[in-house]
């Protein structure tokens, strides 16, 4: 049966690369077929910046604060995108027998997961663009090109816990429950993580609590990448711990789910 196992694994017509792009493309096509579903993830972060930050000239005209506000809403954009895309897609896919069918096709799991990450990542990137554009046009936010690039890398890294939380939600509940839970988790993390209101306005107890949250850690991490300065140890230690813990949880739920999910 050597003819069956022969052939390029990474490249080629049915290589991992081609299959990853194929799956990313089909997910994007499916997503774009329901344009209303895009509004939440693409427009909401930009609108938040426009309504909550731009009118407050004390923040908008201060380069440091304005930059931090743009960073905070970029983190929010990517966080809501990760939670929604993974949480809701997985939860609703689990209710559809299409997903087990895909598992019978000759496609390695890694291509399917990467396809999901690529399409979600692209959407995440798209949701940040309006935030950056509005920030550059209507506020005093400023960053070097290098700072923006470093910020995007930091965003990608700090988004990992949110993707894993999204995956965990997707594998642990129905899509109807997932909608509610994702929204609560998202707004909780956003407010308490200082993504809507800057942490210096927080009461002391909230500020302390905030430091344990991945959203606050992501905010500080990206601000550090964009603006420079000192990186507090609790930020990167927190990101590492959250990433490890949520990854382990996602893996556990994925494995536990497998038997019941597929017929």
């Amino acid at each position, binding site marked *: 049966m050597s003819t069956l196992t022969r052939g390029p694994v990474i490249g080629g017509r049915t290589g991992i690369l081609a299959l990853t792009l194929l799956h990313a493309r089909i997910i994007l096509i499916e997503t774009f*077929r329901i344009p209303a579903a895009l509004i939440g993830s693409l427009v909401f972060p930009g609108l938040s910046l426009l309504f909550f930050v731009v009118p407050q000239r004390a923040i908008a005209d201060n380069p440091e604060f304005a930059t931090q506000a743009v960073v905070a809403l970029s983190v929010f954009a990517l966080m809501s995108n990760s939670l929604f895309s993974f949480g809701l897609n997985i939860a609703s896919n689990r209710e559809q*027998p299409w997903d087990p069918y895909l598992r019978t096709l*000759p496609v*390695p799991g890694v291509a399917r997961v990467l396809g999901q990450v690529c399409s979600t990542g692209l959407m995440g990137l798209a949701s940040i663009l309006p935030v950056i554009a509005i920030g550059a046009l209507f506020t005093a936010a400023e960053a070097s090109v290098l700072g923006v690039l470093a910020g995007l890398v930091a965003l990608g890294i700090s988004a990992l816990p949110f993707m894993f939380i999204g995956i965990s939600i997707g594998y642990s509940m129905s899509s109807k429950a997932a909608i509610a839970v994702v929204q609560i988790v998202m707004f909780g993390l956003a407010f308490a993580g200082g993504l809507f209101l800057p942490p210096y306005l927080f009461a002391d107890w909230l500020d302390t609590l905030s430091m344990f949250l991945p959203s606050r850690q992501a905010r500080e991490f990206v601000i550090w990448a964009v603006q420079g300065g000192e990186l507090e140890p609790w930020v990167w230690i927190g990101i590492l711990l959250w990433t490890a813990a949520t990854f382990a949880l996602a893996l556990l739920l994925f494995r536990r789910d497998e038997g019941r999910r597929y017929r």
Partner: protein
Amino acid sequence: MSVLARLDHVTRRFGDVLAVDDVSLDIHSGTILGLLGPNGAGKSTVLTMVQGLRRPSTGTVTLFGGSPGDYRMRRKLGGTPQETALPPTLRVGEVIDFVGRHFDAPLSTAAVADEFGLGELLKRQTGALSGGQKRRLSVALAFVGQPRLVLLDEPTTGLDVDARRTLWDAVRRQHERGATVVVTSHYLEEIEALAERVVVLGHGRVIADDTVAAVINQVSLRQVRLVTEHPDRVSGLPGVVGRDVADDGTTTFYASDSDRLIVELVRSGIPFSDLTVRGATLEEAFLTLTGATGAEPPAARTAPARTAPARTAEKEMNR
């Protein structure tokens, strides 16, 4: 004839439920193999293990000489999604094209559409298709990649007679082009129309593995229902393969030759009344054969042996 897939002493449990019980089965190239059995007999579970969706609890499943869990082994395997599974926002043409791109030498989307009567529908979103159209698309997807082995799980359930025959014709044409097909069904008619070899499953075990003609002969049972004080004596008559006791005091005996049974009954002098004779449905024949093979003694069951909801529940557990 080479062996495309093999189950070797395969057992699969779902919690306490034994869905597949020590099944050994070779799927040879070039045939259409029918897997026949009532709901909950383990047909779908057998297919999902060949597809790599589930692993056996014990025993081994091999596909093209390797593990079905290895995606490279599935490059010559075709299967069907359930018709409710199709992503509703994708167009018919997109779905066919998407599935085809997983294979090295797929059929063209136009050729697939033509073969399965989907030509007019390529631009339609799958959510807008009728039940029969979705079925046709689902079955078509199994053949897109020009696979050597195709697994069809109840391909025509819920279709009307015309649609069913159209689909059978398409499956036969694909088979003539070289695809080996495994089709599960609980319709004897479907197996008769398509298959050459039949494996009958009941309670997760292989009850029969033979040609279509031989199996039909075996499952063509007659029911003789009567009231008698001596059911055990009737059961002892030649040709009786099973019996059910109903709540209304009647007892139903199963026999392949009811005429002969009645002659023997009259000759034996066993008192009886209210005699009726009718053909057994496939389901009843299955249950009797299944019971007769020792899973549970026929006399212990009452007719109908299990209610429909109970069988549905059993099916659900298998999911």
